[in-house]
């Protein structure tokens, strides 16, 4: 019998999911026992816990790492390369729904460091009651940022403490990526030697943020404040991860008519969206354990896992089989239209860009801080982007 220690972040989301999956897994694999390490509150805390534990007896056998932190983990040689394991069962992998696109989400420089477990993309949440009150048609949600800004301004004008938009720019560069990728832009050049996010696409992206503030009166929310205001029915539109859907539904209850829609793209043709979420990563170097861990990783990231994660949270399926097979989620999506926005955006999902070098996290912080200046209106979009670019350039590895 093998015992696997599993560590995961954000228990508020994943505790029940993990419990269900591990229970089912142990039923199917009676010779493997799953035990959970203390979970971490956030991705950041998760990764630092792992970093600390690397090489110690406390290191878990598996963990779940935010997709944008995989690169950093890999630089420190934390994850086990899954390539050889996949190569062994190439055929059955595809059968189980692990398409190449999906495998790619958890690759760093071509190395398979994990399997995407829960994946998300940014969507638009809106308060249909407010939209209606402002003269909009809730059944025809805005398709462009111009429409959002327009309708947002009208909602703001309703007064009574109502705000137009909560664009979730805090914390990391994910939502900025959504605008940037949506405009067809990239963070760095192909060879990762020059900063490109301050190019024309980036300018357009940041301009949206600026206009949201200027024209639609978006206030400076902290993460929680925005969340709270939206579920209280005081905000027209919220742009954030689809992963928050289940909780939002619960928090809103029947206070208002909650709807979701696809997020507007600056380039509706070629626009892409970053993939949020996390991947299951194998840490153990013990051969016997690695086999068991691989079984669990496949199970968690496989169709069964997805069928538990998706309804329980709001993440989109990380597994093509799960998404389409009626055995898993087919019927679910029909009955739950709110979940469909994320599903529809799946084809646009590309990896959440992770910066090279040891300063990756600091780079994202720089972008967030400069976005904050725009939201606070203490800098123009150009200034903010240029400053950010300058700083980021310094933080990138000198090649």
């Amino acid at each position, binding site marked *: 019998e093998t015992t696997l220690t599993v560590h995961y972040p954000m228990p508020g989301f994943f505790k029940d999911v993990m419990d269900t999956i591990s229970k089912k897994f142990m039923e199917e694999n009676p010779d493997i026992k799953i035990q959970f390490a203390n979970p971490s509150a956030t991705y*950041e805390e998760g990764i*630092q816990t792992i*970093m*600390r534990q*690397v*090489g110690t007896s406390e290191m878990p056998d598996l963990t779940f790492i935010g997709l944008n932190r995989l690169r950093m*983990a890999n*630089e*420190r040689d*934390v994850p086990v390369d899954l390539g050889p394991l996949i190569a062994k069962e190439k055929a059955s992998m595809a059968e189980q729904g692990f398409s190449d696109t999906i495998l790619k989400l958890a690759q760093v420089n071509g190395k398979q460091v994990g399997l995407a477990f829960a994946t998300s993309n940014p969507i638009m949440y809106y308060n249909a009651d407010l939209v209606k009150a402002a003269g909009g048609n809730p059944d025809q949600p805005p398709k462009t940022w111009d429409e959002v800004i327009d309708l947002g301004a009208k909602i703001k004008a309703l007064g009574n*403490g*109502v*705000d137009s938009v909560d664009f979730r720019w*805090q*914390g990391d560069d994910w939502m900025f990526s959504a605008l940037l990728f949506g405009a067809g832009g990239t963070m760095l050049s192909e060879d990762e030697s020059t900063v490109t996010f301050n190019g024309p696409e980036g300018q357009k992206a940041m301009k949206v943020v600026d206009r949201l503030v200027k024209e639609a009166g978006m*206030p*400076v*929310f*902290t993460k*929680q*404040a925005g969340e*709270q*205001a939206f579920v*209280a029915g*005081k905000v027209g539109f919220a742009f954030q991860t689809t992963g928050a859907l289940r909780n939002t539904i619960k928090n809103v209850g029947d206070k208002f008519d909650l709807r979701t829609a696809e997020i507007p793209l600056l380039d509706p043709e070629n626009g892409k969206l970053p993939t949020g979420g996390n991947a299951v990563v194998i840490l153990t170097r013990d051969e016997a354990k690695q086999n068991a861990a691989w079984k669990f990783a496949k199970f968690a990231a496989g169709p069964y896992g997805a069928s538990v994660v998706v309804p329980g949270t709001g993440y989109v399926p990380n597994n093509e089989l799960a998404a389409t097979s009626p055995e898993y989620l087919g019927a679910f999506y029909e009955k739950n239209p709110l979940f469909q926005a994320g599903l529809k955006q799946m084809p646009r999902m590309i990896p959440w860009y992770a910066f090279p070098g*040891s*300063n990756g*996290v*600091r780079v994202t912080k720089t972008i*967030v*801080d*400069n976005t*904050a*200046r725009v*939201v*606070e209106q*203490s800098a123009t979009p150009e200034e903010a982007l240029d400053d950010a670019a300058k700083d980021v350039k310094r933080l990138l590895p000198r090649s």
Partner: protein
Amino acid sequence: MADMAATPIGAVPAVPKTPRSAAERQEARVGLLLSLPAILLVFVFIILPVAAVITLGFTNFELGYASFEFVGFENYVELLGDRTFMQSLWNTGIYAVIVTPISIFMALGLAMLIEAEGIGRSFFRTAYFLPVASLLVAMATVWQYLFHPTIGPINTMLAMIGIAGPNWLGAANTVLYSLSIIGIWQSVGFNLVLFLAGLTAIPRELYAAAEVDGAKTAWDRFRLVTWPMLGPTTLFVTTISVISSVKVFETVKTLTEGGPNKASEVLLYTIYQEGFVYLRVGYASAMTVVFLAILVVLMFLQYRIQDKQVHYV
């Protein structure tokens, strides 16, 4: 051998003098033995780790990498040009300058009111102490809501009297003050209890003397008796308050993460961020050393200035 056993004054017979008597050495030995466990533990859990931090400050150690190199004062040089660090130094200073005096004077005022009041002492004592016993992980959520710019109770109430409340935690120009309010909320109870104790120890007769001497108003009696007599308590409270306000961390971590745009970056948070999020332990250690040095200097100065004025014997 009767009445004249008394030796004449000044006649000192030459008796060999034992250098440090056996009894004294015995006492010193027992004293050392009794404090030995404490000395050892201080050494193991405070001195050694601090020494390790100082050593790490001269390396480029990063979490996750197995090896590191000594880089001399490179980290310290980098610190000088680190805008984030400077900002967080400044923010910490502002925070301490707000929280320390307010929490001290508020606690003093409340303590005097409670002391003067016969009824409900233990209720008030508990009510004001409760925040000290609060779990910040959970309280952060509550404060987040209370401070909410639109639906928060504070701004709702302000709106009722026609004031547009600020964006407490969201705006760069108010975030530090909002955190200070929470800091005050947390520390008043602690100081209050210390002041209550100090007040009960003031001899009643001094107030009687003050009244007879013509101190007619409560303020006169406060100036003449209460304030000076509380000197040692105030010194202690100030010490503890300064230390704890410079050590502010949890509220920043749970509520603002240093934002918006570094407006609430404080020293301990910056150190945490460098060490545990950016994983640059060497650099974070250098920051820690600077942080400790600042604390030591502060305490030294404070004692120098206040100690003399406070002890009257």
